[in-house]
């Protein structure tokens, strides 16, 4: 239900003196995108249950209203119902803008803030869609965007892949703070609760200058919404049940604007048992999650405001019991096995080793100061603490002792300045300081896979934008100085602690152009040069990577990667009926860091293991994302998405690993006019998801060839139940309706088990 809407609401009040209880509220409703009036919308004053409907011109009138504080609820077919607070003293004239469909809107409007106005191309998932499927991980939610895929380790752990890159190569900004933690691991998911986000965006960029991090272009933005201006306590309750895994997900959100400050509190609990493939339970794949987020905002004056944000995320995730392997013999046995070892007949909620326990704290303080009307300064200070424990099946009752235990502090400081000149010239500049301190908590009984390290960096950037009538030009540069101190431990007898220091200087440049040919057609061009210095796992990892049954060895001599990426994006909007977006990208990466399987095997007491070394090569990734949205009538919405991608290791003339196969998705939704006493806004939809086989990987590159293509069929329905003046929003989604047996290339568990079978997701939402 992608189309439903984020909101933009603006109203202008003009009033004239009026007498007691004889106030008239008049107004007009408009579609933000088209400025066309919205007819047949329902309006309701919650305080006195006085209602009205808008006429063909979008006009409405509420008469004989007493002075006071009111909540006006506006609902319209295909729109999310919105409630607005205002104080009525006199006759009032309202101009209300509602966003009717996100597909047909500019991204800038969806983001809701001007500063995002740039030549970059982004795609967004709105709050309604998030709250319907927030039982899923962040990455799974994002994968509904063309060009975004997920790299997963079963249903519990997944991380986003954008244009073929993931992990260290993309940056996730959680509330403007670069997500720290152990993002290098393919089986380490970002520690973010999607319920906290008001919207999620993927910036399909060429070079991201404004944000730190080691990314080569693309960025994921997780943005909590603003706290409402309403002085009363409001909020929402969400409950999502998913039949596969028998999972329950509770979420509460409360917010209020007090005289002194505004606050918002979000809490989420998730509890899920073993998932099921099309025919058997996936033992030990349950998960638990408990998250809390607190937002505080204070406007000191019209020119300066501060806000504080704290979030805590904690999870315990079981990893398929049958995927625990001791050596390559175990792996080849598992590969041959139709049903994984340790599969049980019965459903269970128990989570044993192998499992992960992760806790992540994020605290952020931000101050915004409007120096003058066109000059603004923003300071952000943030700290994160990430604790990750991974448990393996061990001898001697040690399974409850983590085999990997990492504790990481990350601090960041950002100063951002922007200035707009009279001649439509925008200047942005900033300074970024970063410090990361990573420690292996002693007592695991293993030599650490990645060493203790401290990494600091300082970066400065400048971007200039020139707005010429139909053309927006953008130019930017960034320089970053990084220094790394690491303490790798050798596996000699006796062990030695080494002291390694590396310094890197990275440069980035970007240029962009947005050309609005006419009302209907716009073209974006972006090109960017970016450098990414090797991360600590690439430099110094040493040892057996249990999950992949191979010995990985870092390479202390790695040089920074150098990427050159270009993007062209064309948007064509046909009246208010259709939208076509086609984006093509081409990226060359020199000194692309990858794990190369070696010919020789390393003999250990557990048998011979393949050896993987970090090497550098020349890589090329190119592809196309296409999105076509069509609304033939106001009752029908269709959406077709397609993503084509190719990743090549140019030097070795082979495919790059973990590049998704091409995929297509078609969705059709019917919106009923039904505005009954109890049931309203009834919708019905169907979706077909097709995933092609990845055919660029050869047998000597992986333990098993990528699985075959598959097509999934999903159905969904949504409706609102009205009980008195309360509204319950319900949605039921049937995923993998045919209970298809399939495996996905980007799920590591494909070596061991089938992917998820049928799943019915039931969601109910109550706003107050």
């Amino acid at each position: 239900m992608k189309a439903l809407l984020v909101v933009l609401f603006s109203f202008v009040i003009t009033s004239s003196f009026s007498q007691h209880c004889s106030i008239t509220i008049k107004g007009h409703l408009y579609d933000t995108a088209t400025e066309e009036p919205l007819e047949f919308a329902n309006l309701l004053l919650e305080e006195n249950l006085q209602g009205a409907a808008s006429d063909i011109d979008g006009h409405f009138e509420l008469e004989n209203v007493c002075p006071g504080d009111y909540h006006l609820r506006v609902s319209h077919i295909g729109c999310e119902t919105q409630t607005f607070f205002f104080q009525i003293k006199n006759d009032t004239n309202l101009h209300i803008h509602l966003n009717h469909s996100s597909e047909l809107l500019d991204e800038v409007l969806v983001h809701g803030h001007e500063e995002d106005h740039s030549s970059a191309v982004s795609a967004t998932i709105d709050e309604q869609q998030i709250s319907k499927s927030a039982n899923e991980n962040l990455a799974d939610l994002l994968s509904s965007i063309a060009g975004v895929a997920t790299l997963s380790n079963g249903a519990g752990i997944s991380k986003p892949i954008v244009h073929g890159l993931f992990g260290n190569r993309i940056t996730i900004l959680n509330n403007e703070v670069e997500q720290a933690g152990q993002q290098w691991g393919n089986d380490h998911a970002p520690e973010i609760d999607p319920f906290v986000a008001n919207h999620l965006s993927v910036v399909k960029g060429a070079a991201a200058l404004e944000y730190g991090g080691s990314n080569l272009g693309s960025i994921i933005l997780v943005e909590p919404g603003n706290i409402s201006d309403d002085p009363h306590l409001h909020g929402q309750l969400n409950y999502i049940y998913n039949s596969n895994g028998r999972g329950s997900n509770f979420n509460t959100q409360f917010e209020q604007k007090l005289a002194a400050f505004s606050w918002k509190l979000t809490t989420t609990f998730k509890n899920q048992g073993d998932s099921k493939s099309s025919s058997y339970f996936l033992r030990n794949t349950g998960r638990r999650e408990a998250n809390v987020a607190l937002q505080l905002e204070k406007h000191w004056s019209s020119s300066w405001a501060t806000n504080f944000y704290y979030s805590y995320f904690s999870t315990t995730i079981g990893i398929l019991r049958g995927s625990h392997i001791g050596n390559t013999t175990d792996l080849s046995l598992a590969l041959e096995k139709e049903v994984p070892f340790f599969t049980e007949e019965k459903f269970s909620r128990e989570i044993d080793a192998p499992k992960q326990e992760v806790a992540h704290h994020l605290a952020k303080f931000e101050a915004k100061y409007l120096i003058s009307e066109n000059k603004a300064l923003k300071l952000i200070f943030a700290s994160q603490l990430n604790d990750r424990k991974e448990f393996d099946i061990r001898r001697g009752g040690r399974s409850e002792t983590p085999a990997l235990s990492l504790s990481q502090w990350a601090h960041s400081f950002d100063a951002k300045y922007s200035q707009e000149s009279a001649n439509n010239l925008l200047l942005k500049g900033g300074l970024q300081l970063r410090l990361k301190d990573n420690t292996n908590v002693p007592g695991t009984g293993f030599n650490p896979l990645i060493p203790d390290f401290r990494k600091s960096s300082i970066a400065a950037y400048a971007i200039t934008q020139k707005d010429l009538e139909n053309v927006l030009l953008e130019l930017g540069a960034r320089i970053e100085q990084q220094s790394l101190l690491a303490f790798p431990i050798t596996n000699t007898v006796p062990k030695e602690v080494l002291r390694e220091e590396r310094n890197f200087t990275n440069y980035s440049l970007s240029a962009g152009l947005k050309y609005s040919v006419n009302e209907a057609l716009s073209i974006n061009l972006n090109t960017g040069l970016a450098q990414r210095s090797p991360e600590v796992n690439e430099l110094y990892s040493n040892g057996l990577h249990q999950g992949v049954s191979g010995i990985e060895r870092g390479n202390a001599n790695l040089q920074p990667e150098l990427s050159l990426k270009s993007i062209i994006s064309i948007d064509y909007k046909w009246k208010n009926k259709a939208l076509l977006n086609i984006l093509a990208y081409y990226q060359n990466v020199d000194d692309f860091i990858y794990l190369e399987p070696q010919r020789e095997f390393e003999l250990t007491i557990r048998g011979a293991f393949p050896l993987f070394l970090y090497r550098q090569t020349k890589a090329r990734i190119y592809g196309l994302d296409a999105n076509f949205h069509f609304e033939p009538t106001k009752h029908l919405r269709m959406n077709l998405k397609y993503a084509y991608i190719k990743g090549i290791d140019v030097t070795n003339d082979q495919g790059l690993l973990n590049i998704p196969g091409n995929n297509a998705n078609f969705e059709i939704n019917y919106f009923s006019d039904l505005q009954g006493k109890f049931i309203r806004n009834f919708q019905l939809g169907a979706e077909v998801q097709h995933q092609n086989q990845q055919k660029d990987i050869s047998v000597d590159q992986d333990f098993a060839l990528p699985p075959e293509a598959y097509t999934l069929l999903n159905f969904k329905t949504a409706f609102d139940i009205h009980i008195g003046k309360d509204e319950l929003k319900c949605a039921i989604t049937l995923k993998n309706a045919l209970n298809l047996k399939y495996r996905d290339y980007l799920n590591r568990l494909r070596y061991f088990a089938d992917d998820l079978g049928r799943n019915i997701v039931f969601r109910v939402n109550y706003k107050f």
Partner: protein
Amino acid sequence: MVVALFSSCKKDEPEPDNEEELITTLIYTLTPENGGTSVVFTFRDLDGDGGEVPVIVNGVLAANTTYDTEIQLLNEAETPTEVITTEVKEEGDEHQLFYSQTVDLDMSFAYVDVDDNGDPIGIVTKLETGVASSGMYKITLRHEPNKSATGVSSGDITNAGGSTDIEVTFDVIIQ
């Protein structure tokens, strides 16, 4: 102030962890039932996974002889040396050793020791050699195998599952 805070942290050198679970050494001792000199096979990899290559010592068995065999697992990286076999014995129901050979080798083995459920562990076995021959002999230690699966208690590893803690192959000559 912020800059000061960022540069003031000092990073301490870590202490290497004790790898107490590590198995560095497997000693396979065969003593002729009717007396005589024991034959000893060893696999020793003191630095664990990676690093230096393991040292393997193979042995020669006599034809038509019955041997009492015993496996000893050690962690020689610890001081004093830790005897891992004790741990395996204690958790006998969670462990099983498997022995397999190439077809050219004329010998057969039988489990001697059992766990609390009466299922074999395989630290102690009897090995009977046949005529002079040579081939490879593989010793596998599985953690959490399914001992009730078909063939497992008679020494067939096919359906055992679990994860491999040891997989060592020796060259055996019977003469």
